[in-house]
Every structure is written in structure tokens, then in C-alpha cells.
């Protein structure tokens, strides 16, 4: 590491927390964050550093005729101006499909695509120099309709091979089955943003060995390193990455942003280079949730048993593939929801267009269909004259049930139980006269109603989400655990590359080590690439896989200790355990103090955890013995007040029942459910990136609205623990499901209050006023 290395971000948290598995110790970074003292990646700083800036395409689709960097380079204070010809390695990267240039060559495929880089001694200098780069564009007609991109062969091909990123059919039973009661609908979803508060940022420091040390905020250090090394033409070991403070992620930090750009500038100038996006650039500089257009038809018996589901889903992937293949995989395999249906035909399309690239976001690919299948279940209940919860319970998937891909669920799937529990949670009081505080009414502080036009509605949503990577990916994490005696006391240090993105992984890792090693003091080593991969903090997977890896490494350390003591004491290793910093025998009691057993040694073990193998989908039928390793379920009930004359909504209460397998940290679980539900509520009533002709019209938090405390109501949260026998500690991913089932519940409640069809989400006031009745 170079002597330029900046102060570590406070990821190396010396405060050891209290509590083991199943307790709720407070986060080690909590106080710092609340006090505003936590250092995020945007706070990184090095002596003598330069500032990097990225010139981006102003056009959604254009040919680049020429780029003139001369005037920019001549600007005083400018150290480098780089274009595609300066990319040292391969000028292409991508998470699943390597299709995105580090810097555009002869074509730009979206508004915001990176075209050139500047390094200067001041951010303002860099900005001004950027304006002096002269790019001659030949503007082309953008492709903006994904459905057309799927079928219109006269459109230009945005990438070699055409505009289809992935097409996946799923067929189960009789795809042409018929039924007595049929409901159908077309549903659309707008583009949601992760809306993390900490913008993309990093500091690249050139190293004496010709490599680079990059400090950054990301979700997956090793994925970044692999792609960055490739683009820099360096062996991976010369690209060393260290996690800095992450200000939220939600999927938006899975793709590269500053990584290659910042490193290129540092290697080129021989100086540390810092890059930080401002908010507007951030909106252009990361992927969003795929907008979707979804055609659905459900057939059922007159008793309410589902006979078939047929659906076609179009996901707009935008200009580059990013996670589009996975979105199509999840969207189709989970496309009928947590229901048992004998006959299924689903077709999913992920498309290239000239819209902003879309990729990972919490609930990946499962959020979109949930809006359609849950609207359909309500429609079906309506057509049958049945209670919406009853219809769902009647058709609920359960353990031993089969998914549309033919996978038999060999773990609990308490869908019916969750629905039943959520409907039994207490309801808010009806208000007979206008409440005293307008902030409790639709419009809130804006004083639009004193009760006029307000109608209450209740709606339900339930969902299914796959946990961890799927479809044959070797999904694993690595942990290194070191135990030594410091100041007479045992101290365990847990070292992984797993990103703490706010979910509480730093806490859970310490809890596991404390419990497994029976020690009080556990520190978390800063995340870096000196240890093996952990995979991404996505797919609700880190407590599962990194939790499993930390457990395995702790067990290995424990084995070393116990073997020593067994050899010394002659006791059988099976009788020994670690507790309270001592080795204890079930036969003879305390045998030794850890301090004596370890002495001056450092006991260090590194272990991986791989979950059960999964298998790809059949390309024609979508069948797979095990496409996904685990599924998680949650159910929401929303109570809303709608001002039916103005179309304004107040979500009065949002309740959730969720199965988490095992609550490793019960309060953190509640936090995930609250946060996920808020994000889902946002999608239901306000969060949409408005894209017009390929251009984002609201690239700021002025007009991309996310819920405030007045929008997010109190929640009743009911957590159940039905252990998955296949996962470490029985855990089941927690983070994503509440984001998925909350949105359809809120939309259903608005439909119940207004009687309107509301087929587009988010629901805007003008939809409620203008829309057709159901």
C-alpha cells in the first residue's frame, strides 16, 4: 500500500458490541452516523490529490464523429483529459454481459454515457475543462419503447446480436388451459431509483508497483476489482480495493461507476485522484429499477382455485445489459407470485433501448410482477365475489409445493399463515369527525382537506422472493477469523469483503463470532480485497452466505483450540466447548483460560461458505430442479385515506407479517422491514424517474420524491421464524420481501378507496382523478 493511503473510513470499528446471535446489540457505527461524524466515501481525502470529472453524453443515441480535447487540456490546472483511446485494457465491462464501454468510442447509447474524463487541481477547474471538450455528435433517433425493441425487426440493432438481452419462457402443465372465471389486465411500472443519499465516490491512489489502490463505496469489492483490472489491463492483485463508508446502495452500487475512471486518471497522472458525483450526475451515473409492461391473464374455477396464469412481461433494460438477464430470470420464475398454479405460461423479455440503463434494485425482478399478479388476485376476488385474502390463502404456495419451474420447496413456505396473521393485526381507529391535525390527512401539511372527499381503503399484498444468487451461479462468501490475546483478553477479528451498506452486517458478523467463539471482544477488519470474495450485498444474501462463512471460520478456529486442549487434557474433543473466554468440558468443567491456551499465538483460519447448488433454467420451458436456493415471503396490509376529489393519498397504516427463518438480530430485522416497506410505499405513490425521449426529466430530489416521515405511517410488524433446514442458523433473507409486498398492498388500498383501475404504478393524483373505474 502506498504512503498516500488515506485515513481508513470508520469501517474499522474498534468498539466491540455486546450480544450474541438472537440479541439486538446496537450498531457499532450507529452513534457516528447519528452524530454526522461517520466518514463516507465522499469524505475521502489525500494530500496533493486531483479531482476527476466525467463528461457525459447529452443525447440518448448518437454517433460520435470526433472528440477534440485540445482546449480542455490547455486549461490551467488540468492534468489529464482522457478518452476511449486511453483505456489501458479492455474498453468493455459488465456484470453479466460485457457490453458497456468504459468510455464511448464511436456511439453513445444513452443520455449520460461517459465519453471523456478530466483530472484537475480543483473540481470547478475540472468542470470548466469538461465544457471545453468538443464532441461532434450525429444525433440519431432513440429507441425508447421496449415492447417495440422486442418485436420490431426494422429498428436499428443497439448491440451486435440485436436488442433482446434475454427472452425466457416458463411453461408448466397445459399452457393453453381454460377456466370458468377469467380476469386479465395490462399493468405498467415506472422507473424507480435506489435514491441512496451518499453519491458515488472514490479515491484512487497510484501504487509504486504500477498498480492502484482504490478506496470506494461499493456493494461488491471483488466484482469491481475483476472488471476494473480487466479495463486497466492489470492483473487483479495490482488493483487493491478498500471499502469506505457506504451511504446506501439498494442495488445501485453493483455496476461500476467511478472505479475504472478514477483509477485511469490516477495511473495517468501519478497522483491520487478523487471523484464524487453530484446528485444530478448520480441519477445519470447509476442503474435504476427496470420499468415494466406486463400482460396478465388468470383463470380460476368458480370456487376460486387458480387453473392457469399466462403472462408476458417486458423489462426495459436501457442501453446496457447490467442485471437485465437476472431481472428476466427472477421476473419469470417468480411471475405468478407465491401461489400454487397447475398451468403456467410466462414469457419474459429483457430489452436494450436508449433509455437509462437499468439494473439491480432491492427486490430485483420480483417487484414488477408482484404489482401485476396481486392486482390480478384482487380482480379475481372481485369477479368471484370472494374476500381478497381468502382467494390468496386458498391458492397459497406451501412447503412441498411446486413452483412454475418444477422446483419442489423443501423448506417452510408459510404464505397462508402470513396472510392470516397480517389480517389479524390491529386496525387503526376510524375517524368519524375530522381529526385535529391536518398532518394526519391526505395532503398533510399542505392543508388540502379538513376531511372533505376522504375515503378509506384497505388492501393486501403478498410476495415471493428468491434469496441468494440463482440459476447455477456458484454463490459463496469468504471469511477470515483471527483469534489472539490482546491485553490479557481474547480478541477475535473478523475479516471479510462483504459490504456493510446499512443492513447491519457488521453487527451480525460480530454476534456470530461472539457466540461461536465464546469471547467478548470482536472487531471487524476493514473490508478489502486482501481476503477472498464475499459476493455482493444484494439478493438478501449476506447474513446467509457471509454469516455462513464467518460461522465456518469460527468453527475452524475453535477446532484448533479444542484440539490443543484435548491433546493436553486427554479429554474427548466432543466434550469441549468455548464459553466466557474459557474452554469448558461437559464432563469436568472449566479446563483452561483462552489466554493460556493461545498464549502469544495468532490463530487464524479462512473459510468459504457455498450454498446448495442451483441449476439453470431450460431455455424453452424454464424447468429447473432447483433454480433458486431459497424463497422468502412477506405479506402486507395497507390502510389508506384517499382524497378522492384531489387524488391525494395518506397511507394511514402499513402492517407486515414476514417469515425470517431466524432473526439473528431482531431489531435489525424490524429495521429492514420498516425501510423496505417505506421504499415500497414510495414506489406505490410517488417514486418515478420520468424519462421522456430517453432523457431523465427529474434528476434531483426536488422532483424525484421519496417518502418523508409524514408519508410513512406507523407499522405493526409481526415476525415469524420458520427455520430453513438448509441455511446457516435457519436464516431466510430479510431485506427484499418487504419492498415487494408493500407496493401492491398500498395500490390495492387506493383501488379499494376509489374504485379506480389504477394500472400504472406509482399512482399519481391525476390518475386517481382521471382514471377509469375498475
Amino acid at each position, binding site marked *: 500500500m502506498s504512503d498516500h493511503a488515506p485515513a481508513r473510513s470508520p469501517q474499522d470499528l474498534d468498539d466491540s458490541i455486546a450480544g450474541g446471535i438472537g440479541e439486538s446489540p446496537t450498531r457499532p457505527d450507529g452513534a457516528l452516523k447519528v452524530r454526522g461524524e461517520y466518514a463516507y466515501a465522499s469524505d475521502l481525502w489525500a494530500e496533493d490529490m486531483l479531482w476527476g470529472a466525467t463528461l457525459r453524453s447529452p443525447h440518448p443515441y448518437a454517433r460520435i464523429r470526433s472528440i477534440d480535447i485540445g482546449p480542455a487540456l490547455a486549461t490551467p490546472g488540468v492534468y489529464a483529459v482522457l478518452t476511449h483511446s486511453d483505456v489501458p485494457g479492455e474498453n468493455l465491462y459488465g456484470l453479466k454481459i460485457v457490453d458497456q464501454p468504459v468510455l464511448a468510442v464511436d456511439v453513445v447509447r444513452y443520455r449520460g454515457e461517459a465519453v471523456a474524463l478530466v483530472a484537475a487541481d480543483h473540481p470547478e477547474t475540472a468542470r470548466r475543462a469538461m465544457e471545453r471538450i468538443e464532441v461532434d455528435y450525429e444525433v440519431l433517433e432513440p429507441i425508447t419503447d421496449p415492447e417495440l425493441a422486442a418485436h420490431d425487426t426494422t429498428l436499428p440493432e443497439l448491440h451486435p446480436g440485436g436488442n433482446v438481452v434475454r427472452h425466457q419462457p416458463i411453461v408448466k402443465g397445459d399452457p393453453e388451459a381454460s377456466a370458468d372465471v377469467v380476469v386479465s389486465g395490462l399493468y405498467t411500472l415506472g422507473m424507480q431509483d435506489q435514491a441512496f443519499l451518499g453519491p458515488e465516490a472514490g479515491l484512487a491512489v497510484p501504487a509504486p508497483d504500477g498498480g492502484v489502490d482504490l478506496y470506494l463505496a461499493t456493494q461488491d469489492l471483488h466484482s469491481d476489482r475483476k472488471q476494473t483490472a480487466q479495463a486497466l489491463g492489470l492483473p487483479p492483485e495490482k488493483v487493491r480495493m478498500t471499502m469506505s463508508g457506504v451511504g446506501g446502495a439498494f442495488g445501485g452500487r453493483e455496476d461500476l461507476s467511478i472505479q475504472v475512471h478514477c483509477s485511469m486518471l490516477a495511473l495517468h497522472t501519478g497522483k491520487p485522484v478523487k471523484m464524487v458525483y453530484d446528485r*444530478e450526475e448520480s441519477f445519470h451515473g447509476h442503474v435504476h429499477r427496470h420499468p415494466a409492461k406486463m400482460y396478465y391473464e388468470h383463470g380460476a374455477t368458480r370456487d376460486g382455485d387458480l387453473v392457469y396464469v399466462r403472462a408476458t412481461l417486458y423489462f426495459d433494460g436501457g442501453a446496457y445489459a447490467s442485471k437485465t438477464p437476472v431481472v428476466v430470470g427472477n421476473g419469470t420464475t417468480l411471475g405468478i407470485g407465491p401461489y400454487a398454479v397447475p398451468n403456467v405460461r410466462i414469457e419474459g423479455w429483457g430489452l436494450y433501448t436508449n433509455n437509462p440503463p437499468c439494473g439491480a434494485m432491492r427486490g430485483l425482478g420480483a417487484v414488477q410482477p408482484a404489482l401485476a399478479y396481486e392486482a390480478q388476485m384482487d380482480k379475481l376476488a372481485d369477479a368471484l365475489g370472494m374476500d381478497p385474502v381468502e382467494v390468496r390463502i386458498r391458492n397459497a404456495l406451501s412447503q412441498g409445493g411446486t413452483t412454475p419451474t418444477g422446483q419442489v420447496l423443501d423448506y417452510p413456505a408459510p404464505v397462508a399463515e402470513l396472510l392470516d396473521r397480517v389480517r389479524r393485526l390491529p386496525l387503526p381507529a376510524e375517524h368519524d369527525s375530522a381529526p385535529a391535525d391536518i*398532518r394526519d390527512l391526505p395532503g398533510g*401539511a*399542505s392543508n388540502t382537506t379538513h376531511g372533505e372527499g376522504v375515503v378509506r381503503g384497505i388492501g393486501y399484498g403478498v410476495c415471493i422472493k428468491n434469496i441468494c444468487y440463482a440459476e447455477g451461479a456458484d454463490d459463496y462468501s469468504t471469511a477470515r477469523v483471527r483469534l489472539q490475546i490482546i491485553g490479557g483478553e481474547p480478541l477475535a477479528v473478523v475479516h471479510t469483503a462483504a459490504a456493510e451498506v446499512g443492513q447491519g452486517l457488521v453487527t451480525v458478523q460480530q454476534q456470530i463470532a461472539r457466540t461461536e467463539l465464546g469471547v467478548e471482544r470482536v472487531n471487524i477488519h476493514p473490508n478489502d480485497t486482501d481476503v477472498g470474495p464475499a459476493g455482493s450485498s444484494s439478493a438478501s444474501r449476506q447474513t446467509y452466505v457471509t454469516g455462513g462463512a464467518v460461522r465456518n471460520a469460527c468453527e475452524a478456529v475453535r477446532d484448533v483450540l479444542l484440539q490443543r486442549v484435548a491433546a493436553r487434557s486427554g479429554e474427548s474433543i466432543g466434550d469441549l466447548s468455548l464459553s466466557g473466554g474459557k474452554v469448558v468440558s461437559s464432563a469436568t468443567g472449566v479446563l483452561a483460560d483462552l489466554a493460556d491456551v493461545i498464549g502469544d499465538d495468532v490463530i487464524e483460519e479462512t473459510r468459504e461458505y457455498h450454498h446448495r447448488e442451483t441449476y439453470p433454467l431450460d431455455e424453452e420451458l424454464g424447468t429447473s430442479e432447483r433454480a433458486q436456493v431459497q424463497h422468502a415471503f412477506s405479506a402486507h396490509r395497507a390502510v389508506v385515506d384517499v382524497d378522492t376529489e384531489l387524488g*391525494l393519498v395518506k397511507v394511514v397504516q402499513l402492517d407486515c407479517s414476514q417469515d425470517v427463518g431466524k432473526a439473528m438480530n431482531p431489531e435489525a430485522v424490524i429495521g429492514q422491514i420498516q425501510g423496505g416497506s417505506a421504499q415500497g410505499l414510495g414506489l406505490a405513490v410517488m417514486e418515478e424517474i420520468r424519462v421522456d425521449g430517453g432523457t431523465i426529466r427529474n434528476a434531483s430530489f426536488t*422532483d424525484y*420524491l421519496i417518502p*418523508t416521515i409524514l*408519508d410513512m405511517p406507523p407499522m405493526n410488524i409481526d415476525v415469524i421464524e420458520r427455520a430453513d433446514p438448509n441455511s446457516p442458523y435457519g436464516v431466510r433473507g430479510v431485506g427484499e420481501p418487504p419492498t415487494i409486498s408493500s407496493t401492491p398492498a398500498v395500490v390495492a388500498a387506493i383501488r379499494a378507496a376509489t374504485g379506480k383501475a389504477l394500472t400504472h404504478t406509482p399512482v399519481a393524483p391525476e390518475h386517481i382523478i382521471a382514471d377509469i373505474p375498475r
Partner: protein
Amino acid sequence: MDFLRPTSWRDALEAKAHHPDATPIAGGTDVMVEINFDHRRPTSLLDLTGIDELASWSEHGGKLRIGAGLPYTRLIDELGDRLPGLAIAARTVGSPQIRNRGTLGGNLASASPAGDGHPPLLASGAEVEVESVRGTRLLPVEEFFTGVKRHALASDELISAVHIAPATGAQQFSKIGTRNAMVIAVCTFAIALHPERQRVGTGLGSAAPTPLRAIEAEEFLSGELADSGQWDSPRPLDDSVVRQFGDLVARAASPIDDVRSTADYRTHALGVMARRTLGWVWDEYRNHPSSTGRPECA
């Protein structure tokens, strides 16, 4: 970028005369956003927060004189009882942090069609006091706005204060936003009863290139109320009057489609807000003909 920080009003006017291109900055809640977005790159900033008198208010000859630099929080706390319409509007501005910093002077000079301070000023017939080293002018607030984000200030002028009469009758303000707090208006409506003049005042925001009054609606309603002797012996209003008032307010608007909403929705919502707020102020007037309109929430 130069940073000028006068500590007296006189010095501020001198500075503005010497640096006509200097950008005044009060709370900075608009200026800083514009600089961040690179929408403007001021050569110099003229900081007005060092001038105590600008952040004060006083009462002269039955009128309130509100310093241009008085933050919303103080306006609400100190003048909310006498200016209930303006206080309701001020409560809808941003968040507590923004209300601690943001000022009416800044709101006026930004001259955004969506400025929430403007409609209540229109409904109350307020005047804007502007000043330069050359002297002082008093402009009726509707003459202050000349276009989208354009106003009547000369390059050497600063806003010194707003003159407004304390409420003599009920006042209301209503704002549509797609979130329940901290939101830029989709459209707004303000209404003020002036029993002593037997007049009704209105103000519309985000309804046209500039904030505006619905003059026909004012004339109609003032006429209806006077003709039927309602000011002296108020009775419940006829539905047809309320509806007509709402229609006339909606008709006064010439809104646009933009990223926040549609023209149709805005027109519709203005009508609804006009009917509802009229109902509220009239109920209050009937119940307490002499009191002012008190806001509903603390």
C-alpha cells in the same frame, strides 16, 4: 467568487450599486441549490444575513412591515396570529431546516411561479418595498412578478420589506403536492376575507407563468356577498355560488403540463381548493365574524 458581507442596510445598498451583478443571498435555500446545479455561477455573493434590521418586523399605521430577511420560522411564530394565511403557507415551505433559513424576500426575488409565499400576499394586497441608493419604491405585489422567475427589481435594487395589513377576516391557503410534506407545489390557492372592505382576495400559484389573482372570481364572490347582505348577516353559502367561485378560479389559471403534474389536473385541483377554502373561511366568518382565520395545525 467574491463574498460581500455588509453589516448595515446602507452598506448593502452601496455594495449592490457598485456590484450590480452581485447575487444577493439571504437564507441561501434557492441560491445554493442553483449554484450546486450549476444553473448560475455568480461572480460575487452579497450576503444579507449580517444585517439585523432586515430580519425584523414592525407595525406602522395599521400595517405590518416584514423585513425581507425574516425567516419563515419567525414569521410563523411571531406573526402567525395576525397573518394566518401567510403562516399556513409558510408552514408548507420545505422542512423545519428550510423554514429556519428561508425568507420571504428570497421567495419573492426567486419569483418562481411555485413560490408558496406569493398567493397569500396577493390575496391580502401586500406591497413590496424595494430600495436602492437612488431611493425607495413600493410595488403592489402583482406588479412585482414580470415573468417566470423574473421580477421588477432594477440591478441596483434590493427588497427591503413587505407591507401587509393584518388579517381582518378569515384566511386560508392550500397547496397540492405529491408528497405530504416538503414538496414543491403542483399548484396553490390562497383566499382572504376583507370584511371591512366587503372584498374577497385570492392568489394562485403554479397556475400560470407568474403568481396571479383570480380577479373575476373575486369580483363575482364579493358582489354576491355584498348583494345578498351576507357580510352583515352571514348565512351558509349556496352551492351554486361556491361552485361558480371554484369554476372562475380554475378559469383564471393557464397552467402547463410538466414533470410535476398536468395542466388538466392543476385546473381541476384549483377549482377544488377554491371551493374548499371558501367553505372554511366562510364557516369561520359565520361563527366568528370578527376573528381572524386560525390555522388548523400547530
